[in-house]
């Protein structure tokens, strides 16, 4: 296979002037190199999310059947999203936290649109496990939110990291209430 990557100046017996010869050979080598480099881009880009994947990035959720105190898991972009219909106590607990004590300081109001509905991506910010706490029988950790079984991260009722190795709060996905009881995530 031709090897264009290393220009090798020609030795001796050529009648051309040095500059023109160098120019042609360097130009040829660089063009071949540039062409090979550009040809790599379609390969890399083909691994990016395809159009159909991007088009599926919204999920609609009907909130009407979710009773106060219940938690619902829905799938959005291939990951679980936790919908928590919080009780007044849980909201109060989330509001009462001293921001200075948080690893990733955020007020509860910054994390919800309606206080009774907490919507977070159910993926632990440590290494991507799904925390427990959605089922009534699950352990919820010391802060009443979620408990990640992989490495023991504990989240509070606002989905904020309180203890364990995770660096950040559970992410809040973009969402909007299309009616009083339906929400569109994404």
């Amino acid at each position, binding site marked *: *296979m*031709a*090897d264009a990557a290393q220009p090798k100046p020609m030795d001796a017996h050529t009648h051309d002037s040095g500059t023109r010869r160098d120019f042609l050979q360097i130009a040829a080598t660089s063009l071949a190199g540039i062409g090979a480099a550009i040809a790599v881009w379609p390969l890399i*880009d*083909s*691994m990016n999310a395809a159009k*159909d*994947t991007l088009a599926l990035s919204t999920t609609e959720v009907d909130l009407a059947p979710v009773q106060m105190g219940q938690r619902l898991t829905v799938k959005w972009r291939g990951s679980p999203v936790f919908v928590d219909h919080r009780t007044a106590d849980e909201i109060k607990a989330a509001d009462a936290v001293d921001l200075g004590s948080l690893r990733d300081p955020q007020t509860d109001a910054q994390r919800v649109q309606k206080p009774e509905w907490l919507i977070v991506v159910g993926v632990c910010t440590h290494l991507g496990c799904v925390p427990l706490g959605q089922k009534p029988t699950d352990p919820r950790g010391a802060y009443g939110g979620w408990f990640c079984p992989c490495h023991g991260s504990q989240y509070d009722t606002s989905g904020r990291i309180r203890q364990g190795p995770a660096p950040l709060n559970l992410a809040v996905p973009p969402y909007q209430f299309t009616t009083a009881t339906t929400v569109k995530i994404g």
Partner: protein
Amino acid sequence: MAAAPQQNKIVRWIDHRLPIFTFMQHELNEYPTPRNLSYWWNFGSLSGIMLVIMIVTGVFLAMQYTPNVNMAFDSVERIMRDVNFGWLLRYLHMNGASFFFIVVYVHLFRGLYYGSYKEPRELLWMLGVVILLLMMATAFMGYVLPWGQMSFWGAKVITSLFSAIPVVGDSIVRWLWGGFSVDNPTLNRFFSLHYLLPFVIVGVVVLHLVALHQHGSNNPLGIDRKGPQDSIPFHPYYTVKDMFGLGVFLIIYAAFVFYMPNALGDPQNYVQANPMQTPLEIVPEWYFLPFYAILRSVPDILFIPAKLAGVLCLFGAIGVLFFLPWLDTSRVRSARFRPVYKWVFWLLVIDVAVLGYCGAHRPEGWFILAGRLSTLYYFVHFIILFPVIGWLERPLPLPTSIAAAVTRKGGAPLGAASPMEKH
């Protein structure tokens, strides 16, 4: 040119333990090559580049493809429509198969014309035939993957060839299919093997190159190099010439990929496979047409039924190539010095073209006769004409050396243009 590569400290450290730089210097850089190679010698390196293009595009396509009878067709169309540059990868791969065969066929006919299979390059040639066989298997199984009508029926017809084998034929076919028809198990194993075989080809290509570098390239004169005056270092002479040839080749290839990507394909393969309905005409891809013609042309031979005879001749058509080094009894390699063979060679080219033409048409009327005669000639050419011409022909006097031949021509550009038709 032979400047030592070990100037850099790190390079020297590595090379002392793993002589990869010395190896490359020796085999790619200063590797002595006949100074008179024509552009027909470009097709070897072009084949290698096509193999790389096919593997690279194939690996990325495989990331998006689903080998399941219910999803394969749609997953290919998803590649065409939704995957970023998916259409480009798919068209490069699809047309790449055709261009790979074009390049390899030219490479093969070049070897035939200049006697590149003759002593001491017999194993080099035979490894090349092995590569061709592997390529055919790979191409055949790859064509099944999009699961179009032609994919399905091509797979069915070709696998059914094995049912011609007496006694165990039907069992073999059922084993190949993994069931009672071409179905999901068949598609899955074809995908697996289609991914595997190219890497087997890479392995055989390495052996092919080892064998090549043992005695070096043949050349248009077919005479051995006698000393340093007959050769030049591979780099930069043949690197730049190969690169230029690659540029010309890529322009043609790109013209097809971007402006007539479906010209070499069959519209039927844009219809999803339907095991209940055979298309009106089943035609293989163009590169298989001559072999397909042989398969269909052969009548009953003595006690062998036509079906079995066709299969035997099909495999014989490639198998006979393994024996060329011994079927050719001529003392000289290059057809330039073989006044009779140089014309007979063209009969083979025409014969294969006629076979291809017959393969593309339904075996009716004249096509039956033409197919049979051209099939007959194909074997007569190799089995009878090759040894007989070698015995009877009086070769022209050979030049004393490559350099001498070049100077006699008065310093005409080496290897530029095709030197053959001047004789």
